[in-house]
């Protein structure tokens, strides 16, 4: 005990002295990366800290979605904001007008080698919403289909290369599921109670069917919205996926082998890879595009970016800014490792590298880049927006049999159009 006390005080004394001597800049970091990708990000932060004795990132992972963005908003208002944070590009249209993001000048970015030509044009454009750079894209992440190769093989749903076949087109998809349904209670493990998860799949289906979410000031013109929602409703009604499953349970259904198909974002790739590596998965899994149920292929996607919160009360100091820029530059240069978190790095040089091209299982879904659709660039859309809210509030109950597709879409339409 006595030793512990002594070493405790010694630790304090040493840290005070070392602080005075080498002047370590502390960078307060907030992220929302709670999935399998969060583990990879912690590794990257450790690597950064090791390589930079003069900068120490002090990272906190907060609850994804509304809680995170509310906290950012209020903390910046009172001057208690972090120095750097992760932010979804889909939310920039909502965030930029509130002034919570500090614009980063081209010179500041260039000082750490961040230039427009190193990013995908659409991505960089999104990060420049409002006429100034408000963040540095880290990745592009999309929705994919995880499949149990053994079960799909047994059901005759794999081709000679081991890729799922016969799942494209609504009829083929339903027939394939009917086959799987004979082998298991629920072929699909999907977080059917989660508004965000439903948005990602539904928005992909809507775009596959060539429908629009917004047209001018009207939400869901035509009947494509109802039709795409009906597909998800049918999946529950026919017993292909259970109603009201939460995120963790849906993932668990796939991992335990209870379900052969899991629709989720690429951020769970590291979870599956790690389980496989430790021989805990018990089967061979694959990751591919979601089933194409319309005339064209479309995949919902979004991007994580790094941003600097702006506060009138307590703007970031020059010293901290310099450190934060270094962090942004380093993270972008080293985002190959972020590829192991399932994401597609936003830095094109990294994506073009041989290392990334050979990365498994990322290379099996590399083609999603061609079919990506992003959330509408409107203040009502994007992560933790009124649209996400409406999906939890109205669309999730429809998927779970509480409302008809028409009722749910109409309720959402009324709600969102009032905000336009």
């Amino acid at each position, binding site marked *: 005990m006595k030793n512990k006390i002594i070493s405790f005080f010694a630790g304090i004394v040493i840290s005070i002295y070392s602080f005075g001597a080498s002047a370590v800049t502390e960078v307060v970091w907030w992220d929302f990366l709670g999935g399998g990708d969060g583990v990879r990000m912690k590794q990257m932060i450790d690597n950064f800290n090791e390589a930079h004795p003069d900068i120490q990132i002090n990272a906190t992972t907060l609850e994804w979605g509304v809680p995170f963005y509310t906290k950012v908003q209020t903390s910046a*208002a009172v001057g208690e904001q972090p120095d750097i944070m992760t932010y979804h590009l889909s939310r920039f249209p909502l965030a930029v007008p509130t002034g919570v993001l500090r614009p980063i000048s081209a010179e500041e970015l260039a000082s750490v080698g961040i230039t427009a030509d190193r990013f995908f044009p659409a991505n960089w454009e999104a990060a420049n919403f409002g006429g100034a750079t408000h963040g540095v894209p880290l990745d592009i992440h999309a929705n994919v289909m995880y499949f149990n190769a053994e079960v799909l093989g047994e059901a005759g749903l794999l081709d000679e290369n081991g890729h799922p076949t016969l799942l494209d087109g609504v009829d083929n998809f339903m027939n394939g599921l009917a086959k799987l349904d004979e082998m298991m209670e629920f072929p699909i493990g999907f977080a059917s109670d989660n508004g965000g998860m439903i948005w990602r799949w539904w928005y992909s289906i809507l775009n596959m069917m060539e429908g629009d979410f917004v047209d001018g000031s009207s939400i869901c013109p035509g009947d494509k919205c109802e039709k795409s929602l009906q597909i998800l409703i049918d999946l529950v009604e026919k017993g292909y996926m259970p109603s009201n499953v939460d995120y963790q349970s849906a993932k668990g259904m796939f991992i335990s082998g209870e379900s052969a198909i899991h629709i989720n974002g690429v951020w769970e790739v590291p979870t599956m890879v790690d389980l496989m590596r430790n021989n805990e998965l018990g089967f061979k899994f694959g990751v591919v595009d979601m089933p194409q149920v319309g005339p064209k292929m479309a995949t919902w996607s979004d991007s994580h970016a790094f941003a600097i919160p702006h506060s009138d009360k307590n703007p970031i100091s020059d010293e901290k800014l310099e450190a934060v820029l270094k962090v942004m530059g380093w993270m972008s240069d080293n985002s190959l490792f972020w590829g192991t978190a399932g994401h597609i790095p936003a830095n094109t040089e990294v994506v073009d590298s041989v290392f990334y091209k050979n990365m498994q299982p990322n290379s099996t879904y590399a083609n999603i880049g061609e079919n990506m659709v992003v959330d509408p660039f409107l203040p009502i859309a994007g992560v933790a927006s009124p649209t996400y809210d409406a999906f939890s509030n109205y669309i999730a109950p429809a998927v779970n049999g509480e409302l008809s597709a028409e009722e749910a879409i109409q309720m959402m339409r009324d709600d969102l159009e009032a905000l336009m």
Partner: protein
Amino acid sequence: MKKYSNSNFWGLLLAFPFIFFYVLFLLYPTIYTLLFSFTDSPLIGWGKWVGLENYIKLFNDKLFLKSLKNTFVFVFWTVVPNTLIGLMCAMMINRLKNPYIAAFLLACFFIPHILPVTVVTQVWSWMLSKQYGIIQEFLEFLGYAKIAFFKKKQFAMPAVAIVTIWWTVGFNILLFIAGLKSINPEIYEASDLDGANSWAKFRYITWPLIWPITALVLTLQLIFQLKIFDQMYLLTAGGPFNSTLVVLQLVYKQGFQMNRGGYASAIAMVLFLIIIVVSIMQYYVLRDKEKDK
């Protein structure tokens, strides 16, 4: 005379810390919110003065009227049941001869009350989870299908009410036990001599004598439950399709999610007024009843 003014001084001095914090943390923010409600302010910082515009908009806002209705539905599910269950439990504990068992039971009922709301809602969302909830096993054993309690319109509100009662009933039991203990046992002895049965004893002795406590518990409950937010936010977030959207959830939504500080303040002020009016009304109703006795 000198002595009187002296005690006045000391009284004020002793009350000063309370008055200071009361003004700083209650009066000042309340006045600020009131002023805010007449502006189109964002969440933080002042906006343009818009007069009564927010209030006019409010009474045409279908969602606000719905949230008001939902709040009263929640009051219906909690206030009287919570009071009656509290009274019943208190009477049962009070009848126990062994003081240790009584103390143990009282502690059991009271422990949930000291838990933070986050723990309470986490425990219940585990117990009621559709996938692995222990209550679901029980339902299956009885031959029913699994129920996603917080996702179904007909179950969401009662489920949150049950969680709330489980969480807060301990406090009511405590108040009732204090009330029951204060009834002179000689009155019961006298009624025994007159041959009163248990129901008569409850109806003509316990109930009237404990009425002041009942009125207090009812009033406190009404105020607490009108302010419902935490459990609802954590368990249902207002869904499914706004069936559990309560007034404070709407304040949160408008203020923190939509960045409309002025409008959110107007909603908050209306709720504030409703709570004051309803509690005063209830106070008068209950007081009259007490006089009649």
